[in-house]
C-alpha cells in the first residue's frame, strides 16, 4: 500500500466519507476509485487528486500532508527524500549556524580551563573542554605564519564548523586540510546524508580560508561510532587532539614527536582520499573548467541570479570589456575570443536550462552591465542601449538550445547568493567569499551531482515561470529599451518607475 492510499483510507474512515458520492463528484469509474484507495494502481492525476481533496474538505495542514503523500507515491520514497535534501541544500545556502557557537562563548562553564595546559598530554572527558582546546589551538594556528590545520573528523559538530567559519584570519594564509567520510549507502539510510555534509563544509570557503576537503567512502556510522576508540583528530603545527567521534573523550598533545607522527599518519590517509572539489586558481582556469563541465554534458541546469547572455555577445565588444592596463592584455583577449567561440559551440550542442531572477534582467536593461562576467571585465564597460537591444534580440533567432525561466519564491533569495550549474556528470558551485572574491568549486562526488541534477530537472513547476512567460518578458524588455532609444533618453531611470 502506498503512502497516498494509506492516508486516503485514513481520511475516508475518519471523516466518514461516502465513497460512492465521492466517485460521482470526481467523475471517475467506481472500480478505479477503489483501486486508488487500495493502492492497487498508480495515484490518480493531479486533477482527480484535487477533486478528492476538495470533496473531503481537508484543512490546509491536511491537504499539505495529502499532497506530500501524493508526491511520495508518485516518485517513490527514495527519490522524494533525495529531492527534499537537494531543495534544502539550495534554499539554505550558505548554511551558517551562529547560534550554538555564540551560546558556547557566552556560557561561563565552571569546568572550563583558563589556558592551555603545558603538559605533553592532557586527558579530557567533556565536550566543553574539547571545544575550548580546539578553539585555542586553532586560533593560535590561524595567527601564526603559514597556518596548517588538519582535521580528521565528520563535519557533524555545528560548534566546530561555525567557529571555523567565523575564524578571524591574520592576513597570513591559513590552510585547512579536512579528511572525512562519505556514506556509501545510497538507499535506506536517510539519517546521514552527503548533501548535509556538503552544506556544512561550504561556509568555510566563504570565510576565505584555504580549505581543502578530502573524502573517502565508508559506512559513516560503523566507521566513527559503535565502540570505536579514537577515530577523530585535530592537528596544528604545535598541538594535536585525538578523540572519540562524539568529541567528548580525548587527549590534547603538545609533544613534538607525537605531533610529527600524527601529521605523517594524516598525510598518508590524505593520499588515499579523493579531493571533494577541484578549485581553480585563475580566471583562465575558471573558464576552462566551466567549459569542460559544459562540454561533458548533454543537459545542463543553472540556478543563478542573472540571465546567461555570454554566448550572444558579439566579438566586437570583447576588446572594450578588457581594461587598457590589464596585465597580459593580448593573451587575455585571445583567450576571450576562444572562450566565446567555445561557448557558442557548446550552446548549440547541449540543452541548457537557466533559472534566474527577473530583476537581474531589469538591471541589465537599465545599466548594460554584464554582471555574469568576472570582476575586472564587468566593471569596465556598460553596453549601450543599442547593443543591449541587439544582444537581447539574438535570443529569439538563435541556433542555441537554451531555455530561460524566471525563478519565483522561495528561490529568489537563494539564487542571489549561489550559482549552481549541474549536468549529468559534472557540476560546479560559484559564490562570493567575504573578500568579494568569486570562487568556483568543481564538485567531484557522483552521488551529489546525481541528486542535484535530478532535483533541478524535476523542479517544481510552481517555483519557476514557464518559458513562454519568460520570453514574453524578454520581448517587453526589448520594446522598453527601443522606446528609450527613440526618446534618446539615457536609461538612468529605473524601469519599474
Amino acid at each position, binding site marked *: 500500500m502506498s503512502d497516498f492510499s494509506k492516508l486516503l483510507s485514513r481520511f475516508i474512515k475518519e471523516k466518514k466519507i461516502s465513497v460512492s458520492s465521492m466517485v460521482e463528484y470526481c467523475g471517475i469509474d467506481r472500480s478505479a476509485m477503489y483501486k486508488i484507495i487500495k493502492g492497487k494502481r498508480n495515484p490518480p492525476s493531479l486533477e482527480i487528486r484535487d477533486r478528492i481533496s476538495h470533496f473531503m474538505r481537508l484543512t490546509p495542514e491536511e491537504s499539505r500532508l495529502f499532497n506530500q503523500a501524493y508526491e511520495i507515491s508518485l516518485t517513490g520514497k527514495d527519490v522524494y527524500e533525495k529531492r527534499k535534501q537537494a531543495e534544502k541544500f539550495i534554499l539554505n545556502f550558505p548554511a551558517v549556524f551562529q547560534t550554538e557557537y555564540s551560546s558556547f562563548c557566552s556560557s561561563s562553564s565552571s569546568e572550563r580551563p583558563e589556558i592551555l595546559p603545558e603538559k605533553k598530554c*592532557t586527558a579530557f572527558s567533556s565536550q566543553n573542554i574539547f571545544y575550548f582546546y580546539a578553539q585555542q589551538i586553532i586560533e593560535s594556528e590561524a595567527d601564526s605564519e603559514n597556518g596548517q590545520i588538519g582535521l580528521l573528523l565528520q563535519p557533524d559538530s555545528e560548534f566546530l564548523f561555525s567557529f571555523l567559519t567565523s575564524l578571524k584570519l591574520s592576513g597570513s594564509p591559513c590552510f585547512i586540510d579536512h*579528511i572525512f567520510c562519505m556514506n556509501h549507502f545510497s538507499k535506506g539510510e536517510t539519517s546521514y546524508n552527503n548533501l548535509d555534509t556538503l552544506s556544512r563544509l561550504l561556509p568555510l570557503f566563504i570565510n576565505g580560508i584555504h580549505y581543502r576537503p578530502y573524502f573517502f567512502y565508508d559506512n559513516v556510522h560503523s566507521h566513527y561510532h559503535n565502540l*570505536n576508540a579514537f577515530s577523530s583528530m585535530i592537528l596544528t603545527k604545535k598541538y594535536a587532539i585525538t578523540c572519540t567521534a562524539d568529541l567528548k573523550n580525548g587527549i590534547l598533545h603538545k609533544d613534538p614527536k607525537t605531533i610529527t607522527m600524527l601529521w605523517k599518519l594524516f598525510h598518508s590517509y590524505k593520499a588515499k582520499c579523493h579531493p571533494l572539489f577541484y578549485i581553480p586558481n585563475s580566471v583562465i582556469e575558471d573558464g576552462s573548467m566551466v567549459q569542460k563541465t559544459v562540454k561533458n554534458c548533454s543537459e545542463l541546469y543553472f540556478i543563478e541570479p542573472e540571465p546567461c547572455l555570454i554566448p550572444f555577445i558579439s566579438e566586437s565588444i570583447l576588446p572594450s570589456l578588457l581594461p587598457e592596463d590589464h596585465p597580459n592584455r593580448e593573451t587575455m583577449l585571445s583567450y576571450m575570443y576562444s572562450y566565446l567561440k567555445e561557448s557558442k559551440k557548446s550552446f548549440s550542442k547541449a540543452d541548457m536550462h537557466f533559472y534566474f531572477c527577473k530583476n537581474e534582467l531589469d538591471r541589465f536593461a537599465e545599466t548594460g552591465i554584464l554582471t555574469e562576467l568576472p570582476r575586472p571585465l564587468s566593471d569596465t564597460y556598460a553596453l549601450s542601449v543599442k547593443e543591449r537591444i541587439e544582444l537581447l534580440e539574438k535570443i529569439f533567432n538563435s541556433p542555441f538550445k537554451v531555455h530561460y525561466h524566471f525563478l519565483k519564491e522561495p528561490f529568489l533569495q537563494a539564487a542571489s547568493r549561489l550559482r549552481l550549474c549541474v549536468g549529468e556528470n559534472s557540476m560546479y558551485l560559484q559564490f562570493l567569499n567575504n573578500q568579494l572574491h568569486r570562487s568556483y568549486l568543481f564538485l567531484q562526488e557522483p552521488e551529489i551531482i546525481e541528486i542535484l541534477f535530478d532535483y533541478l530537472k524535476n523542479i517544481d513547476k510552481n517555483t519557476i515561470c514557464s518559458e513562454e512567460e519568460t520570453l514574453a518578458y524578454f520581448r517587453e524588455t526589448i520594446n522598453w529599451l527601443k522606446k528609450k532609444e527613440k526618446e534618446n533618453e539615457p536609461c538612468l531611470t529605473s524601469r519599474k518607475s
Partner: protein
Amino acid sequence: MSDFPEILNRFITEKNIHVYSMVKYCDIDRSTMYKIIKGTRRPPSEEIRDKIAAFMRLSPAETQQFEHAWQISVTGKVNYYRRKNAESFLLNFPAFSDMPGEFPGPARKPFSSKKECISFSDQNEFSAFFKYIIEQEKISGDGQIGLLMQPSFIPLLRSLIQPGLLDTSIHIDHIFCMENAEQLTETNDYRSLCYLGNLLPLFVNQRNYHPWCFYDDIQSHFCSLNLFPVLILTKKAVITCTSDCTEGILYQSPEVISMLWNIFDTYRSLCHPLFQVPDQNSICRIRSSSSPAFSGWSFKENGVHCYCSKNTVKKYISDLRLHASDNNLLNFSAQHFHFLKSPLAEASENIQIYAEDKNMFLHFKNTSGGSVYLDLQEPRLASALLDYIKNIEKDFLYTEEENIRYVKEINQKI
C-alpha cells in the same frame, strides 16, 4: 555467475568442446545443458558432472579443479568456506589457526620511563612497548589488562600466552567486533571462526581471559582510515594505535589512563560475553554416563548424534560395562554413532563439542591437564560449527558396516 559454470565455460572454450556432442554423450536435454553452462540453474548431479568431465577429457588436476568448483556451487560459497574454516579450526586446535609471527625482540623499556606520552611509528617499537607494559603489570601483582582490538593480530595474542609472562592473577578483558553480516573476507575466510581459533589458546594456557563482543561491519569499523581504533590498557600505561599496530602513542599519565579505562568500561558494558562458564550442575548432567555427550562432537536432535574416534567409542563402551546395566546398553544402541577417520579422529579427542537446544558447550584440556568447559554464547558461531558437524564429508567417516563390525569386535574383547 557461480564458480562451476565459470570453469565449465573456460574448459569448453579452451578445449574447443562441441557442446552438441557433449549433450548427446551426457544424454540430457539440450536446453538443460545450456542452462548449466550459463549458470542459470543449479549445477548438475554428480553423475552428469562426471560424464561432462569424461567427455572433456580432463587431466587429474583439472578434474580436481572441476569437482572443487562443483562442490562450491552445490554447497553455496559461504557455506562451503565456512565449513572449511570450521574444519581447519577443529584440526588446528589448540594451535593458532594461522602460523606466522611472533613479536620480534624483547620487551623494551621506553627510554624515559617517566614520560607521559611517547609516540611510535613501527611495529617493532609497538611490540617492545607492549611487552614492557605487560611485564610491568605482572610485577605489580593483581593486574588488569584491557584490550580493544580485533583478535586477528596473532603476534600479540601469542605473546599473551608466552610462558611466564602472565598468570591467572591478571584479569584480561578483551572487546572486539564480530561481523554483522554473513559474509566471507577477501581471502574467503569466515572471520568469526578464525577469531575463535585465535582466542581459545588463551584458555588452554590458563589465562584469566574474558572476551566480549559487539556486532558491526569490521572493515569499516576498524580499518579504512580510522585513526586509533586500538586500545591496550594496563593499570599503569595505555597504548592507543592504528588497526595495524604500526603508529600509535604510549601514555603513562595517570589522568589519561583513567579517562581511557572509563571509555573501555563503558564500551564493555555495551557488549555481550562471548562465553559463559557453565555451572557444575549442567556439566554433571551432560557428562552423565548414559549420554555420549562430550564424546567427540555431538548434538541432540531426536536423540544424541555423536561423531567420535574409535578410541573414544572403545572407552565409552567399556565405561558402560563398568556401570553394567542392560538399560545402558540398550541406550547405546539407540544412539547415533559415527566413527571418524584420521585426522578428524584426533581432532575430536583434542576438543569436544556438545550442542543441545540453543546452547553449545566446548570442552578441552588446559596445559596442566584440567578440564575447561565453555558455553559459547554467540549463536552464529555455534551454528557454523554445528553445520560443519552435521555435514562432515563421507570420506572422513567409516561406513555403517565398518562401525558395526568394530563395535562387535570390542564387545567380544571385553
